[in-house]
């Protein structure tokens, strides 16, 4: 089994300094472990505050982990030179309006990664840019336009082209389609699937939209307040969820089924996601969990192998 990416015991703590008060520590990621294989898409689902965006930032080293280890192609992150690292792992951002510099032409946006990281001549770069634009479905005459001339879908294509210029092995996609209209969403998802085959990419696909995650992922990782609650193959998770949080998440997702009685969410699960600043002593989900037992309030459940997946619940 060749793992492209291996994450071991990853922790990220943010210190929040308060004037004249004790500073608070926010555990954005706690003991995160997973692996990513070649050509595989790992879907990461969770609601706000679950740590999925922090995870994306740590994986791309926009934020540095507090503890833990990440290995890329069998080599530790800290042993990489920046140039080498940037050409192996890249990211596509959520907001196509914010992720492109409004004062740069499309051509320069795509060409800059090459200009900075390689010694290619401007002629070679030109060729590579135009062939990449073609691959992501942007016409060559768009090269001299500024981002505000593009629609949301086209901007996201530009963002994808930029991320692929250095031919990375891993692409982190942070909510890449959630800002797009439904009809455009499908176009971009199709493009991502095509590109994955063509460049044999491994994806980490972060989204709150379960139908998108379900379509594009091979494996699913469900997070709640900085911890993995369930991690396993897509079909296992979607068809036979074990963790009570996964169950509620799936039942809450909007579906197209008409007339079918929508499942009632258990009364206890209603209400809000607690703040990551004041985590309960035991399982983070225990205050909302319909299956809560005294055990859950005492200790944090470990991520254990049950029914072909890993799940962190005493009662699963």
């Amino acid at each position: 089994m060749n793992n492209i990416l291996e994450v071991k015991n990853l922790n990220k703590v943010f210190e929040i300094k308060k004037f004249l008060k004790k500073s608070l520590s926010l555990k954005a990621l706690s003991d995160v472990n997973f692996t990513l294989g070649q050509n595989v898409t790992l879907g990461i689902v969770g609601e706000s505050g679950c740590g999925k965006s922090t995870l994306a930032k740590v994986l791309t080293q926009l934020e540095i982990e507090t503890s833990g280890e990440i290995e890329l192609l069998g080599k530790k992150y800290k042993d990489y030179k920046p140039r080498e690292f940037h050409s192996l792992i890249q990211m596509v951002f959520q907001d196509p309006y914010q992720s492109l510099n409004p004062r740069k032409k499309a051509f320069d946006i795509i060409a800059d990664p090459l200009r900075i990281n390689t010694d290619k001549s401007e002629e070679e770069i030109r060729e590579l840019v135009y062939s990449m634009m073609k691959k992501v479905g942007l016409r060559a005459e768009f090269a001299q336009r500024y981002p505000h001339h593009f629609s949301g879908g086209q901007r996201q294509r530009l963002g994808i082209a930029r991320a692929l210029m250095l031919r990375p092995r891993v692409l982190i996609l942070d909510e890449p389609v959630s800002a797009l209209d439904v009809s455009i969403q499908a176009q971009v998802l199709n493009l991502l699937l095509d590109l994955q085959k063509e460049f044999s990419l491994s994806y980490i696909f972060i989204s709150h939209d379960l139908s998108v995650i379900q379509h594009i992922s091979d494996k699913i990782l469900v997070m709640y307040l900085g911890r993995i609650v369930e991690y396993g193959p897509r079909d296992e998770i979607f068809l036979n969820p074990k963790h009570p949080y996964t169950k509620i998440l799936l039942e809450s997702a909007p579906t197209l089924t008409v007339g079918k009685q929508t499942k009632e969410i258990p009364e206890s699960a209603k209400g809000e996601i607690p703040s990551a600043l004041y985590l309960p002593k035991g399982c983070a989900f225990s205050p909302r969990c319909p299956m809560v037992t005294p055990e859950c309030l005492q200790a944090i459940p470990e991520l254990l192998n049950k029914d072909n997946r890993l799940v962190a619940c005493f009662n699963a």
Partner: protein
Amino acid sequence: MLLEVENLNIHFKSDRSKNPIHAVRDLSFSVKQGEMLGVVGESGSGKSITNLALMGLLPDSSLVTAKKAEFNGHNLLSLKDKQWQKIRGREVAMIFQDPMTALNPFLSVQFQMVETIKAHMDISKKDAIDKSIELLSLVGIPSPKDRLKAYPFELSGGMAQRVMIAMAISTNPKLLIADEPTTALDVTIQKQILDLIKMLQERQNMAVVLVTHDLGVVSQYSERLQVMYAGEVVESGPTKDLISHPEHPYTHALLGSRPGALVDNLRRVPKTILPSIPGIVPSFNERPIGCQFSPRCEFVTPECQRSPIPIFESEPAHREYRCIHPIEHVVIK
């Protein structure tokens, strides 16, 4: 009929072009007392502009014309500002996508709720506070007395939306317009808010217009559905029929491009190419003469692009569609 709109047209004056922008074209729809109408459309479909027109909140640069626009016996087209104030917030209420920006960050929940209630009802401050507490517990806010003292930034997105809903229903409006009320919220919170709106609709026999871009959101809640595209209604009818047998190619394609609803149990094979709609929604100044969807439609014929397409009705099922080649009649390749 509680709300009846026929041939509504909305134009905007524009600095940049001589011709006014025709934002909403020939829109006709109606809402019955106690009914929930779902309105689905992508950006630029005109769904939000229509809502603002119904609330009389469009800017002066707009021109609203209609054959008929009646709400509960009022002719909405001839209302003066003073008369609007009586209807707005009292008979029609509205909730928005982002509850945080809809609440004033400098005023407590209590102040904002009491203000709203007292503006429309002749009651004392104490009674208004009592009513606020009652409303907050109705919308599912735990310990409503304490929450009343809170400021908007102390509330989560879901809580703030609940407060907005409580304020909206405080005057027992006949119609509630919910403009993408859950788009900014998390999945588990979204369901709770939608359930709440549905519960209130049934309990208070209130009509609801639920506007969203997500077919999945409306399909479980609304009785009737109206699909909008580029400023026009392309199809409307009972939700169940419309979703199981779309007539208009746009509705058909929109349903098809969803990445596979969960409860359909992997109806679409994961990691395969989705049937997507090519191209993008035409911008206001590039709209075609004929069918708005024709440039992206797979069933397009020269006829579609010649002149505006009228609405066709299929009487028994209460279905309406703006297409000369509805799905039932085309042979799908």
